């Protein structure tokens, strides 16, 4: 994975000192909160329901054991012994003190980490495929391109005071594991007929109050022009975004309002103006970055055989372990969704354990996923059983990847001042209701996503079953949505009807699964059956 050179380190160190000075000026009253807020948001620091909350960047979800241990250190020293992995591959801490934030950033900088641009109206963390470098279906590793984009968009002087946040995601496989079409810019690496590398460019996706699936703006962008094209997109948006209404400022609104054709025309025109400036990063620099992402020194001659005699191990193998491109290896998914637990939360002790496992079993590399789980990308099959036993002892071996209990949930009203309703107790109740292993497997792939408010940090629009928390005359109420997907078959979930209270929404989910079991034909997932039979059978069952 990428390692900082003296330039990268100098930039991050300068940023720490800058924030330390800005914080001192805030505490001395030289900056009002209104003036300080964008500055602290540019360093991932929110003022939240219980305390300051810090969001640490994990660029394209990749980190090593040293960095993971630092995340555990921060949880212990500065927080309350745990962290929360988010739907953008970042980690959040909920109990931060402003006066300690500069020290936290300084600690992070010692292991090449930061909280730069993880909130506020910035270009946010660049996200990518959690199986990058390990999956057989990618045409190349997307992460060197993600790193290139990360650097090019860090402290960009023209685009640091954007209309709203801006989220970019990259993939390099047909299967979209990064939900690229629900991002402001989604980039898919492809090869043209001549075998040259380039990007399909999608612009204008997003969730929140007005969700959109991003249209394709350019079917093939030569890879070397990635940055100048991004600048063109940003410049067009910066100029035209509506600044009168905070709910209308994302680029998805602009693309929708002027239309895909006109938006494309403007971007292409702007790009032609930008190209002569020479802002594109040359291939030699890309090659330098790419050299940090070599294939690990895989062992050869390994067996693919596995002893499945332990039924619990077999269950976990079938559900959480994905095929690796190399014989004898596997991709391990570590579930942070224990039944009845808090989705995405991890204790400092668990963090240390996972760091050790990554170091020992995965060439010192692990990943955070946008489904709030973790991945050890390169594990020898002959190490799987021992690994699983260790995970199980630590409560990290729930065999539920992509099943009904693998729920994505935002922190909700328990933690977030933006929320209208709590989301975690709903996730806990659903998981408990469906805890039976046999039942989970019978239902198969079923992605439930819960947001505590319309900001959709739980990605409920992209859930096969989505749940949205609302405030109904001062009490918590939940709307049920069906049929969303963040994969390459992207679609937005539709609301079923009137909302429910906390127990009611769990019952409604159960009724929806009953309809699926009744209506499905062989091989259909919940999502497929819904798409085939439509909303009516579900409405009937839920509302009677």
């Amino acid at each position: 994975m990428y390692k900082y050179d003296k330039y990268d380190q100098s930039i991050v160190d300068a940023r720490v000192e800058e924030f330390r000075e800005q914080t001192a000026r805030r505490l001395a009253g030289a900056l009002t909160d209104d003036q300080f807020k964008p500055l602290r948001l540019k360093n991932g620091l929110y003022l939240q329901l219980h305390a300051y909350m810090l969001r640490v960047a994990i660029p394209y979800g990749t980190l090593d054991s040293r960095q993971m241990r630092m995340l555990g250190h921060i949880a212990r020293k500065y927080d309350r012994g745990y962290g929360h992995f988010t739907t953008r591959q970042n980690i959040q801490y909920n109990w931060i003190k402003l006066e300690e934030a500069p020290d936290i950033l300084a600690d992070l900088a010692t292991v090449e980490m930061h909280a730069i641009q993880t909130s506020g109206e910035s270009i946010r963390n660049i996200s990518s495929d959690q199986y990058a470098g390990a999956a057989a279906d990618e045409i190349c590793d997307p992460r060197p391109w993600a790193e290139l984009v990360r650097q090019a968009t860090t402290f960009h002087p023209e685009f640091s005071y954007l209309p709203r946040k801006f989220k970019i995601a990259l993939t390099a496989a047909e299967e979209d594991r990064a939900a690229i079409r629900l991002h402001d810019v989604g980039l898919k690496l492809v090869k043209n007929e001549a075998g040259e590398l380039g990007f399909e460019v999608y612009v204008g996706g997003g969730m929140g109050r007005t969700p959109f699936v991003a249209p394709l703006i350019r079917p093939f962008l030569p890879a070397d022009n990635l940055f100048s094209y991004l600048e063109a997109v940003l410049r067009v948006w910066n100029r035209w975004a509506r600044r009168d209404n905070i709910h209308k400022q994302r680029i998805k609104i602009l693309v929708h309002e002027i239309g895909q054709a006109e938006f494309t025309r403007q971007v292409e025109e702007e790009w032609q103006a930008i190209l002569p400036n020479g802002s594109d990063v040359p291939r030699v620099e890309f090659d330098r970055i790419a050299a940090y992402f070599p294939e690990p020194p895989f062992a050869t001659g390994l067996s693919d055989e596995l002893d499945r005699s332990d039924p619990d191990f077999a269950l976990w193998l079938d559900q959480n372990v994905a095929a690796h491109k190399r014989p004898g290896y596997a991709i391990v998914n570590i579930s942070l969704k224990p039944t009845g637990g808090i989705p995405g939360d991890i204790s400092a002790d668990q963090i240390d354990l996972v760091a050790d496992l990554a170091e020992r079993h995965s060439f010192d590399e692990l990943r955070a996923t946008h489904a709030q789980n973790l991945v050890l990308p390169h594990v020898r099959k002959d190490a799987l059983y021992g690994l699983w036993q260790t995970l199980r002892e630590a409560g990290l071996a729930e065999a539920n990847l992509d099943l009904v209990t693998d729920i994505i949930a935002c922190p909700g009203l328990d933690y977030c001042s933006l929320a209208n309703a709590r989301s975690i107790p709903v996730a806990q109740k659903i998981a408990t209701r469906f805890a039976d292993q046999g039942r989970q497997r019978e239902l198969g792939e079923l992605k439930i996503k819960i947001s505590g408010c319309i900001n959709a940090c739980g990605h409920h629009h992209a859930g096969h079953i989505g749940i949205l928390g609302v405030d109904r005359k001062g009490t918590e109420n939940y709307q049920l949505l069906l049929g969303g997907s963040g994969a390459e078959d992207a679609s937005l979930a539709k609301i079923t009807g009137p909302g429910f209270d906390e127990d009611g929404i769990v019952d409604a989910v159960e009724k929806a699964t009953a309809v699926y079991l009744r209506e499905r034909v062989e091989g259909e997932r919940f999502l497929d059956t819904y798409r085939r039979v439509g909303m009516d059978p579900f409405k009937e069952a839920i509302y009677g």
Partner: protein
Amino acid sequence: MKIVTGNDLKTGAVIWWAGDGWSIHVADAVDAGEHADALAQTEQAALRVNGAYVIDGEATPNGPRPAHIKERIRAIGPTVRPDLNLEPADPAAGSWVI
């Protein structure tokens, strides 16, 4: 009653206007009445609070109770982590929220 809440500027701790200063316990909250907004601004300018805002609450035999569940969660802590509550020794503390 009008209750003023905010966060301590340095530590981020949730605080409640208690009349003669700020307290981390909602039980100490007083009715700031029609001066609530002005008070919030003055205290914010003096750096004694950050992000102060005014909410409705009612005086009950058990102390001030914020009208909205959000501020009741704010007063006690996340309902899903009773061990992190302001009153971790009291298992019934969480039931006051709902």
